[in-house]
């Protein structure tokens, strides 16, 4: 049999333009590496500046792409549809907030700013590619890119054993999950004969372009199951969540802030593309499993969070619970569900990173005990504005009205109701009820009078203060007037559904 080498020659400038935000961030990454090697003085400021500038440029590029995106480019591997661009926004906003909260923490724990930001940008590139990927191969490569950077970042605080443990644990378990994912992808490829998401959908939908037996092949279902495990691990869905609390607690706080939102956003974007679009024709086969995973995740995440004493562990379990709520929206498998996932991550970026800003500030002011919830005692008296911001984030994570968290959760559950999965919505609401207790316990501890009255905290570092204010503004703004951003989310979902020929 002859090996046929066919060389398509159609990589045009437009193709490259469709991944311009990713290219910009890659460029920023390279510049940061060089700057780190050659600039000896004031490195934290310079590195932060370069990182923020890169993010800003990438944001502008993404805004330009919003109206000029291509459904498929670079040999049908990457899409710059509005759905991808919306997640680019989420990732870039999170990266910007992380860059703002980092400097004080970098000074506190003495690590290398250049490498830190370079790795943040590198994983951001992976995340953006993951959100844009329309080929299983690219999904996997992007996932590896973002994970590799995050492994290193988790273990970045080399002097702290917890951080080393986090890096190593994350590396071992996560690569195991990657293996599941790629094995599943291989099997799906084996069954359908393609790695392109659009073609998988066509193949499973009406058997065009592949053997008619594809949708009955056991290979397909084993593959889908393995892929589900892989995705579930990356977004910490119970029972694949074991790594989350240890890694979130051990990793440096800015890293935890960043990865807790963006990894989930990127992986959920791919998750939606694969499960809600490529595998939509066989929804009846995966729905039951996702249904069970969502319920277990919401219940376990919320109940285990009740007994946490460390703020970062609490936020880790809260993150697991939120993954459950988002999974409810994914299980709904309708336009409203996809819209709500997109909006959820925008809201989550503000409220969750906001909460981590507080942890980072507390740690850089009080040392490692700043992570203990007990050390928040009397914060309302010591540092009223920081405590007020914390309260806003906690109320939002708990899903109180007038905050972004409420609108996001409301949409996710109404998607489930619209898809006639009322059971999921009810369990979601009841488990959020449990969550109120542990979120408000933090506020409650802050309200207690301090042991030593009259002591004021040192002022919050300016950049972290700015990050906290932006997060507060985002959380409340999205809660009261979500209209504009919901329209963006709506457009993004309409765009991707149009590509797949769905109403």
């Amino acid at each position, binding site marked *: *049999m002859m090996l046929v*080498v066919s*060389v398509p*020659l159609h*990589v045009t400038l437009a193709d490259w333009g469709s991944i311009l935000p990713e290219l910009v961030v890659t460029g920023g990454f*390279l510049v940061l*590496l*060089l700057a*780190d*090697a*050659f600039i000896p003085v004031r490195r934290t400021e310079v590195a932060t500046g370069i990182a923020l500038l890169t993010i800003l440029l990438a944001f502008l590029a993404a805004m330009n792409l919003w109206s000029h995106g291509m459904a498929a480019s670079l040999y049908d591997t990457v899409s710059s549809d509005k759905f991808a661009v919306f997640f680019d926004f989420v990732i870039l906003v999170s990266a910007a907030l992380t860059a703002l909260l980092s400097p004080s923490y970098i000074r506190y724990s003495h690590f290398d700013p250049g490498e830190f930001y370079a790795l943040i940008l590198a994983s951001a590139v992976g995340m953006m590619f993951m959100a844009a990927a329309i080929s299983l191969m690219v999904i996997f490569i992007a996932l590896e890119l973002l994970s590799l950077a995050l492994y290193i970042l988790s273990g970045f605080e080399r002097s702290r054993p917890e951080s080393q443990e986090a890096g190593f644990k994350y590396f071992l378990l996560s690569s195991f999950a990657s293996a599941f994912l790629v094995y599943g992808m291989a099997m799906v490829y084996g069954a359908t004969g393609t790695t392109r998401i659009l073609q998988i959908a066509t193949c499973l939908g009406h058997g065009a372009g592949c053997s008619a037996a594809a949708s009955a092949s056991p290979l397909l279902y084993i593959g889908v199951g393995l892929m589900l495990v892989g995705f579930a691990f990356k977004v910490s869905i119970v029972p694949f969540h074991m790594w989350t609390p240890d890694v979130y607690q051990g990793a440096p706080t800015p890293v935890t802030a960043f990865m807790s939102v963006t990894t989930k956003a990127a992986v959920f974007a791919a998750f939606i593309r694969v499960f809600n679009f490529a595998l939509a024709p066989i929804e009846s086969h995966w729905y039951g499993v996702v249904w069970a995973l969502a319920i277990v995740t919401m219940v376990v995440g919320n109940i285990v969070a009740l007994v946490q004493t460390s703020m970062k562990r609490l936020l880790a379990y809260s993150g697991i619970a939120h993954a459950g709520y988002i999974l409810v929206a994914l299980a709904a498998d309708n336009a409203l569900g996809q819209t709500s996932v997109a909006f959820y991550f925008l809201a989550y970026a503000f409220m969750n990173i906001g909460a981590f800003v507080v942890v980072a500030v507390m740690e850089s002011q009080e040392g490692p005990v700043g992570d203990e919830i007990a050390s928040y005692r009397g914060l309302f008296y010591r540092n009223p504005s920081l405590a007020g911001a914390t309260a806003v984030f906690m109320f939002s994570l708990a899903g109180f009205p007038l905050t972004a968290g409420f609108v996001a959760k409301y949409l996710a559950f109404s998607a489930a109701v619209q898809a006639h999965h009322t059971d999921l919505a009810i369990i979601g609401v009841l488990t959020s009820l449990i969550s109120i207790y542990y979120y408000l316990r933090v506020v409650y501890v802050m309200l207690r009078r301090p042991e030593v009255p009259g002591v004021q905290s040192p002022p919050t570092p300016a950049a972290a203060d700015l990050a906290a204010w932006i997060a507060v503004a985002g959380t409340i703004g999205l809660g009261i007037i979500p209209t504009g951003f919901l329209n963006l989310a709506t457009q993004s979902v309409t765009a991707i559904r149009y590509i797949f020929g769905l109403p």
Partner: protein
Amino acid sequence: MLTEYIPILILSLLAGGFALTNIAVTLLSGPYRPSREKLAPYESGMTEIQPPRQRFPVKFYVIAMLFLLFDIEGVSFFPWAIILRGLRFPGFVEMLIFVLILAVGYVFLWKKGALTWER
């Protein structure tokens, strides 16, 4: 379709069998009388002063890792070279960018002292 691979299978069997046969024959036919001197790593040299298994300095691992990295990146030149004619000029530019990225990594490593043996 799989039948095309039968010659390869036969060849591997032959190669493996040859090796196995040689080992088996020497083990079975040769005399085996071990002594302390014979089992020493250097039978006819100096006696060892410490066990040979030791921890390598981490520098070796760094170098090995860097070698691996750049080696694998280097491998991607080969498929590129095969289809370069078809890719024409844009393909050349793309490879230049790729090399540039590699070079940035290299410069970074150099400046960071990853290649310095003694510090």
